[in-house]
């Protein structure tokens, strides 16, 4: 086995563990910019995984998807989020409703839960159990970040993590969807983040704060 094959195999085999580490660090993170960096690293791990698959499967489409992930999720979206954080000139605190220790504990619980959830499917469909669990864990973690963090930007990051989970699920189960569909999904994602950024500014301008738990004018 050559060196590159070995690297590709290693990347595939251990990427789930790296994904779990980013999740636990995200739970512990106190500043929004830390979460953005972690999201970027998480996407880079996914990109490495896709490159490994592309190399193993000799698939041109997979290389294209990897390039898309790197440009959109590793570079463009984190860059845009950093710009928003800078332009907002607001406090960097994620304003969590759980303490750091509690968050890490809950996140670990979610990771365990996802292993239990995927066990029956992984056996019958003969899929990689670790990566499938990582996909479900990313989904749950994204949802957890969205409900427990009060800052509007953290909801965007939670959504992105959730979307990463779906992406990993598609990757492990079907080696990705047809290329045209992938491109469409990326375009939608980019537009979505752009629009949410726009709304974050509008929330700041009309409410003079960014705490979405205080948005409660519309009830009933």
């Amino acid at each position, binding site marked *: 086995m050559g060196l590159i094959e070995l690297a590709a195999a290693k990347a595939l085999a251990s990427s789930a563990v790296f994904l779990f580490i980013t999740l636990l660090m995200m739970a512990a993170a106190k500043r929004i910019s830390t979460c953005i960096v972690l999201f970027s690293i998480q996407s880079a791990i996914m990109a490495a995984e896709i490159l490994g698959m592309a190399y193993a499967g000799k698939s041109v489409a997979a290389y294209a998807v990897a390039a898309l992930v790197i440009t959109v999720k590793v570079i463009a979206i984190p860059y845009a989020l950093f710009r928003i954080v800078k332009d907002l000139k607001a406090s960097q605190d994620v304003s969590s409703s759980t303490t750091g220790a509690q968050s890490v504990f809950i996140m670990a619980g979610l990771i365990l839960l996802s292993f239990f959830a995927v066990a029956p499917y992984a056996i019958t469909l003969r899929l990689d159990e670790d990566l499938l669990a990582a996909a479900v864990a990313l989904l749950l973690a994204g949802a957890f970040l969205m409900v427990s963090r009060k800052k509007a930007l953290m909801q965007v990051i939670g*959504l992105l993590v959730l979307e990463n989970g779906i992406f990993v699920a598609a990757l492990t*189960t079907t080696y990705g969807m047809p290329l045209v*569909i992938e491109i469409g999904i990326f*375009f939608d994602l980019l537009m979505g983040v752009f629009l949410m950024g726009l*709304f974050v500014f509008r929330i700041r301008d009309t409410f003079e704060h960014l705490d979405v738990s205080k948005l409660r004018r519309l009830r009933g």
Partner: protein
Amino acid sequence: MTLVLLLLIPFLAALLVLICKQPQRAVRVAMTAGALEIAAIANAVWRIGFEGVLEFGRYLRADGLTAFFLLNIGVILALVLAYSIGYLRHIPAGRFSSPRWFYSLTFLFVFTMIAVFLSANLGMLWICVESTTLASALLVGFYNTKGAVEAGWKYLVVCTVGIAFALFGTIALYLAAVKSGVNPASALDWAALMSAAPSLGATSNLVKLSFVFVVVGYGTKIGFVPMHSWLPDAHAEAPTPISAMLSAVLLNCALYALLRFDTITSHAIGSGFSHSLLLIFGCLSVAVAALLMVVQRDLKRLLAYSSIEHMGIAAIGIGIGGPLGLFGALLHTFNHSVAKSLMFFTAGYVRENFGTLRMRRIHGMARTLPWTSAGLVVGSIAIAGLPPFGLFISEFMILTAAFSTSRYLIALLLMVALSVVFGALLHHFQRMLAGKRVDLPEKPKLLPTDFALMGVCMAILIVLGIHIPSAFAGILQRALVVLQ
């Protein structure tokens, strides 16, 4: 080419309107583009009637079901554009509150919804449904008030998360198709999936998993309880023409996506599983929305909850299934679109004249605004499901289907809920209508187009309530063929 034209006109219109700096010219361009688009839709529906299925390339496809929903969007687009002429006189000038932005975003919204109907591929269907959220979020937050920004944010976040679940469901179905031996390159194409559907039964667990995620995902967009939290806010805070469009076309758009998945799932593992889920969500939506309608204070929120209720009724119709249930459900979505547009238009007139939508603060409407009141009364009789209007026929069909398949509990729930809704509407509207004439600040009178469009809505509802024209019945029948 017919299909490309359908997408090209609204897209170009969205760009073209944006360069018209003068409000008058923007309105003129928008009306011309709207007329062209409606002609293109009529042409497409006509040709689908003759040729059955139209295709363009790998990704655009239109069959009987598409034709029915295209007709729906065509009618509502015509009504909304006509209404917007009068409505725009009240939009205050501002950076973002200008007619060209309004029309540009509206055409973009229409473009994405038509793209949903024309998608030949379930992945592309997902992409288009997600873009409808993106295109309409700015319209919901159009006024930039506190309420509008909050509603827009909530709409964007709740629907994007919901739709993400639908993507997960789509991937699960893709996996099921690939595992059953469908070529991966075409395993999301509607035609390939339909022909392979019987063999998907081997992976029934995956198909079930996929449908659960899809019903939660697209159900968020349809407004099924308990995923409905965005819907009343968005409907109440959006500009009135957009409220009508959200309620009358966008919800149907998401229902269309769910119908496609329901058909494949039913073919693969039998209709029992998917239809029970639809019945559960339908009953829950009808019951909760009916009760919440009693306690509403804002007219547009009341109408939004009524939309949830009617989508629940349509879901029950699909869930009961059979030719009668499905026919009733499809007819119901169309009837609901027309009746709800009429109601939102009158709500808009009320807002312009009384300056509020708080129902407690509105009195003496019948004497002050006789024509608007007539529209409100006719519309509320129609959405309460009383004869001689179309919704009576479609609700009657769904009830008949429920009784003939001996689902007495569901029929009972539906009848009780409809009575509660009728009581709620009566309770709210009799207070608004009765009372002495109120002196209001002088406001521009209704335009001839306003009378015309209220008349058209009423005429459609009455015609569908008395006798369904054979051409329309033919379109409905061809839609049913696709679903069975």
